[in-house]
């Protein structure tokens, strides 16, 4: 305090000011009066001042978790997991929580691009009618849902191309490889399910099961079971991967193997285990040389010995994950890793490997399209075999590697109709956009593909009335089929989407051992809505026949790497954003679990390598692959092999709304089109060059937990 202004004076003036403010504002009517607005027409199931809860299914990814959404006076307020849903047992992931930000997103498509639905439906009807059935194709998201069934019915009855399901998550998980490996080893196709909870130790080869892999919630629950100490010893977890994922960060041992050598390592461990146990060497492990394998993988032989000893002590569950299978030799790697389980003799046993239960209304495993199948789809678009394309629930322009040429092929298709809720890259390139409701405004059902031992049909219902002039795609198709007449009309003899769903769901009434039963269809449907789905109380995991696995022949030799350069390139799915989360600020703001970076794309590089190259944190570098180049900031990440760089997939949108656009880069632009034997993309088997572009500038760079620079657009992403 100065001489002119004493402490006492300051307190006097401050007190006087506070008193005046309190009197003038506190006593004013504005602070006392609130306004209450009555309903125009109160729904009969509502009660004033009380929340209403609806059970539905999360549509953020294809796992099919059950949600219970709290609504208040017609607005969705909060999503939580549905405790009665056997898949997620009341839990959700961050994406499930953020689904509200899709509902209230300011960038939603608010009306059909033709202005009114009558003309939109006319256009869909004309498209169905005027093109030959073989020239019309549907491209859909990964979820095996009611819309997929409806379009399948339509296609079967009219000779249209069968709908193709695709999603970037499936591509990065290499699902086709996983099921093909199961088919080769067990003679039965299916999506393998790994019982983490019952295992004593888990060897995961690049499976990021705590983040996005296949069905992260049940796998996280399994992981909790693995680590539980109350009933058994705390399970051990070993992760083999070139770049430490958030899942790998939880491991007791993290083994940074060179990309593409996972199969060799698995076979070498198998051989060492067999040697330790004595007896005849199984044929599948006989050809591998552990010394050479350790050298190829860039790990110490001693480490492999140690792991083999662990294998002998514990009942180990070996899991082949996406990054390991996205290699030119991915199928062999998957077989080698699955074969390791034969040493634990855990096929179809607790703590072991199963094939996922088939959902109700399902007779065989129906996997999403592999990248190779998408390539032939693109080829059909290019050649003019597909002249009319409907797109729903997927954004292939963003999700497929640019080098696959989907965008160019799309420009050549005569009629492209998108049913997108947001103007994503594909919708922006479509001729018409006829927006579907948001998931929380929609009816539906979805088969749960994996993650639970019971057959589950998850149910969806609107939790709020649609906010905008959107319409359910199923309703649009049913109305358009009526207009088109003929085989179209007879294929979809339903009044609307709800009638179609009721018809399908009521087929389950005759099934025994259901989670509920009812004698009439209306009651059955009411229960279906109330419980958020129906499941059968019968264990339905399929025990695979692993009797011939040890006598098989797996040649997991070194892979072929695409391109040239000093670095292996490992793109990984962002655990927070994944393929469609970038337009939700909650997810953008959620720090990446391992780096804490938000709102941007980064390139992970080992600090030692960076030091040699004269690269520092937040320097801008250019990554050059054989098909493209991108620029991004460097993040010095100690938990990555010095010969490897990694980039998250999830940012780099050129459309998709204000929160997603022009932020970061898309590593899919770098991925060359090479497939493994099962037709999955060899995305993790690439070599790239790195060039420094500019040094870090103070105040510009990656936003992290500690600094929020870059959040408001002053980052690199804005400049190009």
């Amino acid at each position: 305090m100065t001489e002119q202004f004493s402490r006492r004076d300051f307190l006097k003036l401050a007190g006087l000011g506070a008193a005046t403010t309190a009197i003038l504002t506190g006593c004013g009517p504005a602070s006392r009066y609130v306004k209450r607005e009555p309903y125009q027409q109160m729904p009969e199931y509502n009660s004033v001042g009380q929340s209403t809860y609806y059970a539905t299914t999360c549509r953020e990814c294809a796992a099919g978790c059950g949600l219970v959404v709290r609504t208040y006076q017609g607005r969705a307020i909060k999503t939580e997991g549905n405790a009665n849903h056997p898949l997620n047992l009341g839990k959700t992931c961050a994406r499930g929580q953020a689904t509200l930000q899709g509902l209230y997103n300011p960038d939603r498509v608010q009306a059909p691009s033709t202005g009114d639905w009558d003309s939109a439906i006319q256009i869909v009807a004309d498209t169905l009618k005027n093109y030959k059935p073989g020239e019309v194709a549907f491209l859909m998201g990964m979820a095996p849902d009611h819309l997929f069934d409806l379009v399948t019915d339509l296609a079967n009855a009219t000779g249209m191309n069968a709908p193709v399901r695709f999603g970037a998550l499936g591509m990065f998980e290499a699902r086709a490889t996983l099921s093909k490996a199961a088919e080769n080893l067990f003679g039965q196709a299916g999506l393998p399910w790994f019982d983490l909870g019952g295992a004593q130790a888990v060897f995961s080869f690049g499976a990021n099961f705590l983040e996005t892999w296949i069905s992260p919630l049940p796998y996280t629950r399994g992981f909790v079971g693995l680590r539980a100490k109350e009933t058994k010893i705390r399970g051990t977890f070993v992760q083999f991967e070139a770049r430490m994922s958030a899942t790998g960060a939880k491991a007791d041992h993290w083994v940074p193997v060179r990309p593409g050598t996972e199969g060799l390592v698995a076979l070498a461990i198998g051989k060492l285990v067999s040697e330790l146990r004595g007896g005849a060497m199984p044929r599948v492990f006989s050809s591998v040389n552990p010394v050479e394998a350790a050298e190829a993988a860039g790990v110490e032989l001693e480490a492999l010995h140690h792991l083999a000893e662990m294998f002998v002590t514990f009942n180990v569950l070996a899991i082949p994950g996406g990054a390991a299978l996205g290699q030119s030799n991915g199928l062999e790697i998957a077989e080698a890793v699955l074969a390791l389980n034969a040493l634990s003799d855990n096929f179809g046993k607790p703590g072991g490997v199963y094939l996922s239960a088939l959902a109700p209304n399902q007779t065989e495993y129906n996997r999403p399209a592999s990248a190779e199948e998408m390539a032939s789809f693109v080829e059909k678009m290019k050649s003019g075999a597909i002249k009319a394309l409907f797109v729903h629930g997927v954004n292939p322009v963003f999700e497929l590697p640019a080098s696959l040429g989907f965008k160019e092929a799309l420009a050549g298709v005569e009629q492209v109709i998108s049913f997108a809720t947001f103007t994503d890259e594909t919708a922006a390139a479509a001729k018409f956009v006829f927006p579907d409701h948001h998931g929380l405004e929609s009816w539906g059902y979805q088969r749960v593909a994996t993650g639970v031992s019971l057959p589950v049909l998850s149910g969806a219902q609107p939790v709020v009335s649609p906010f905008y002039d959107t319409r359910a795609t199923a309703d649009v198709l049913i109305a358009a089929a009526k207009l088109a007449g003929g085989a179209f009309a007879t294929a979809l003899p339903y009044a609307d989407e709800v009638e179609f769903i009721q018809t399908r769901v009521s087929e389950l009434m005759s099934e025994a051992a259901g989670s509920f039963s009812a004698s009439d269809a209306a009651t059955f449907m009411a229960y279906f809505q109330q419980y958020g789905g129906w499941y059968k109380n019968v264990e339905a995991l399929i025990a695979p026949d692993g009797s011939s696995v040890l006598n098989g022949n797996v040649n997991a030799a070194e892979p072929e790497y695409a391109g040239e350069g000093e670095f292996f390139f490992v793109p990984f799915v962002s655990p927070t954003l994944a393929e469609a989360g970038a337009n939700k600020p909650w997810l953008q703001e959620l720090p990446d679990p391992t780096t804490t970076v938000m709102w941007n794309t980064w390139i992970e590089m080992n600090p030692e390598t960076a030091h040699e190259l004269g690269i520092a944190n937040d320097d801008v570098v250019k990554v050059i692959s054989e098909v493209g180049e991108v620029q991004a900031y460097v993040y010095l990440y100690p938990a990555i092999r010095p010969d490897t760089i990694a980039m998250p997939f999830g940012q780099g949108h050129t459309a998709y709304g204000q929160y997603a656009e022009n932020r970061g880069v898309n590593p899919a632009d770098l991925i060359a089109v090479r497939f493994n034997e099962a037709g999955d993309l060899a995305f993790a088997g690439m070599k790239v060059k790195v060039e420094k572009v500019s040094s870090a500038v103070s105040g510009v760079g990656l936003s992290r937990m500690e600094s929020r620079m870059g959040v408001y657009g002053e980052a690199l992403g804005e400049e190009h």
Partner: protein
Amino acid sequence: MIKKLFDWLKQPLGLIAAGIVFLALFSAAAYGLYTTQQAPEQPVPGFPHKTHVSFGIQCLYCHPGASKGPAAGLPSQAKCWGCHNQIVKTRDSALLAPLKDAVLSGQSLEWVPVAIVPDFVQFNHRAHVAAGRNCEECHGDVSQMGIYQNPQVFNMGWCLNCHIEAAGEDQAKLIKLADCGTCHY
């Protein structure tokens, strides 16, 4: 500088100035307090509860939430108009023009609730109705009111008096009814 200001304030002229400022603030505060005690402006001025009650309409017909949950609630506009639409006298009455406009335009009337308690009080109508209290015991003789006015101030002493009275000699009941956590949780 501040010292100079305080010195000047001690002069006669300064005292007069300070007095004027004090009076201005005091009257502003008094006016503010006065306005809080006035009935606020409502969207349908002069809404007659009296008339509705005299036709034998039960309180719960328009405010059914009182028997079910925390808030008694306002009737939906569809419910108001459902009757008024059929009464020739009210269909085109100037008094009901705001309601008619709101119904036809799909807008909501903005009512100002007057029987309210602060946010830190967890009041629930249902428990009171279930305990056999009648509406008029708290809300007064609504059959004589136009627009609703509180018959007394809803403060904690008034609540507690009734709670203690209701418990009577029953000690267990008194503990429940007079516990802080009954209303503040």
